[in-house]
């Protein structure tokens, strides 16, 4: 893709910031279908980056490749966790990716429906806690302490997303917007340095979207968690993201600041007929 090359070069990554996730030429084939075609992407600490594109552009597939749900057929996914050595994670199982420090939410909400809100978040702590079968049976002081810590952390997270009052409610009984926020809280419980949000605002009304908007910015600023989000709500995307990548038909067609993207003819073409300012 020689055409896209110059754009990549024109928006250099600020050098002061440390790169957390570096995706190089990621490719994913399903049988004969190339869903993601040599997409490259970088995310730095403290950034909010958006990945946009028309439906079926391969955004979610890209997410799935990065988070280990699919094994990419080509390219590299490198992570540079803060204060740890760089790892190439293609083909890692999702749980290892999460353990390294990248957590995600899902486009179609995937909560543990028949577990309480608190328990949902507690699952997020699984990879950060160590109680084994023996520990669980004897419930020694270490286990007890760990359990209490988990509960405390989870309550704090619920507070942050505004769900404390629902802590003992089944996840399935939450309203839609609250379920989205619970997914975010659950992902945050894994102590990520990077949060991947797959259409977090889908199905939300304007007020909820606004609250979400604030929540994401707050997470990025106060928790020091970088964010990569897929989103169709352009207002949200333009509001909060520092950089935007655009995909179409599995290919990356543009990247840059919201202002760059807004004026990029290719993007406009890709979205022709779609309401970019909605």
């Amino acid at each position, binding site marked *: 893709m020689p055409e896209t090359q110059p754009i990549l070069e024109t928006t250099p990554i600020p050098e002061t910031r440390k790169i957390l996730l570096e995706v190089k030429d990621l490719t994913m084939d*399903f*049988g004969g279908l190339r869903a993601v075609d040599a997409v490259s992407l970088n995310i730095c600490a403290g950034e909010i980056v958006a990945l946009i594109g028309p439906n079926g552009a391969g955004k979610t597939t890209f997410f*799935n490749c990065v988070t280990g749900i*699919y094994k990419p057929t080509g390219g590299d996914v490198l992570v540079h966790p803060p204060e740890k050595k760089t790892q190439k994670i293609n083909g890692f199982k999702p749980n290892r990716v999460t353990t390294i420090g990248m957590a995600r939410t899902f*486009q*179609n909400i*995937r909560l543990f429906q028949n577990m309480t809100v608190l328990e949902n978040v507690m699952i997020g702590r699984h990879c950060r806690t160590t109680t084994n079968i023996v520990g669980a049976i004897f419930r020694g002081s270490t286990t007890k302490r760990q359990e209490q810590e988990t509960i405390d952390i989870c309550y704090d997270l619920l507070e942050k997303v505004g769900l404390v009052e629902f802590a003992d409610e089944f996840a399935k009984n939450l309203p839609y917007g609250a379920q989205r926020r619970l997914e975010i809280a659950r992902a945050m419980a894994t102590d990520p340095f990077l949060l991947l949000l797959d259409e977090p605002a889908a199905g939300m009304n304007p007020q909820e979207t606004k609250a979400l908007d604030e929540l994401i910015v707050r997470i990025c600023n106060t928790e020091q968690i970088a964010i990569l989000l897929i989103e169709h709500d352009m207002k949200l995307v333009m509001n909060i993201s520092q950089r935007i990548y655009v995909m179409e038909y599995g290919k990356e067609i543009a990247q840059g600041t919201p202002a760059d993207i807004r004026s990029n003819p290719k993007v406009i073409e890709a979205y022709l007929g779609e309401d970019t300012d909605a």
Partner: protein
Amino acid sequence: MEYFLELSSSGLVRGSIYALIALGYTMVYGIIQLINFAHGEIYMIGAFVALIVSGVLTIYGFSGVSILILAGLIAVIYAAAYGYTLEKIAYRPLRNAPRLSPLISAIGMSLFLQNYVLLAQTPDFLPFPALIPDFDFMEPIAHIMGSAELVILVTSAVSMVALTVLIKYTRIGKAMRATQQDMTMARLVGVNVDNVISTTFIIGSVLAAIGGVLVGSYIGQINFYIGFMAGVKAFTAAVLGGIGNIPGAVLGAMVLGLTEAYAAGYISSAYEDVFAFGVLVLILILRPSGLLGKAVTQKV
């Protein structure tokens, strides 16, 4: 060599019966992702109805081919009716339930139907009349393949061709394929999904009943329990071939039938089932989607 042929012939016969039953499993699974555990029971009920009808007809003085046709026809009708009712009672209310629920309901239905036949009829084996006559032209090779075996192979082949035509070229076949692809979408474009599912159960039941009648006539005895093992094996065959895939079910059934025959012939028939399930586990480890199944990428 002759021994090999003999074993192959018995493997193929067994395989084609498995295939007739496996098709029902695989079609239902393809559409609603449910293991219809009670499908083997439909096969058994088909055989029982054929037995009862032929018994009554014999007593009332019918003979030969007319019995075969009438008994087969009524068995098929009843199996279809049972399949239809089964879906309506045990599965339709659970359409949107968690995956385990319809499966457990299916196991319950299987137990229920077995014991229903046991109580309504008898726990003993019953003699099944030999409805298939011996053909003279098969006599020279009868020790390799007899008339009954030939009829089983031909009937199954014809049924499968008919099924293929039905699915490929008829309206309901198209609707079935559409529903299999995407139920919501099919519903949106005006396919009556409930009808399609019912039809799938009916077609599957019809094939199973054909299998039941053939087996009964070939083996000469049935009881309430024959459906269970046959069902498990047929399901194994469907999984082997890649569940949801119609040619796959036939291939899987043949592979399973031949495996069992060769295992019994060359190793030991005491471990026949061990080999059958061993092949299943092996294939599932090496190729989790079965022989012809497409690797399903789960939508996330």
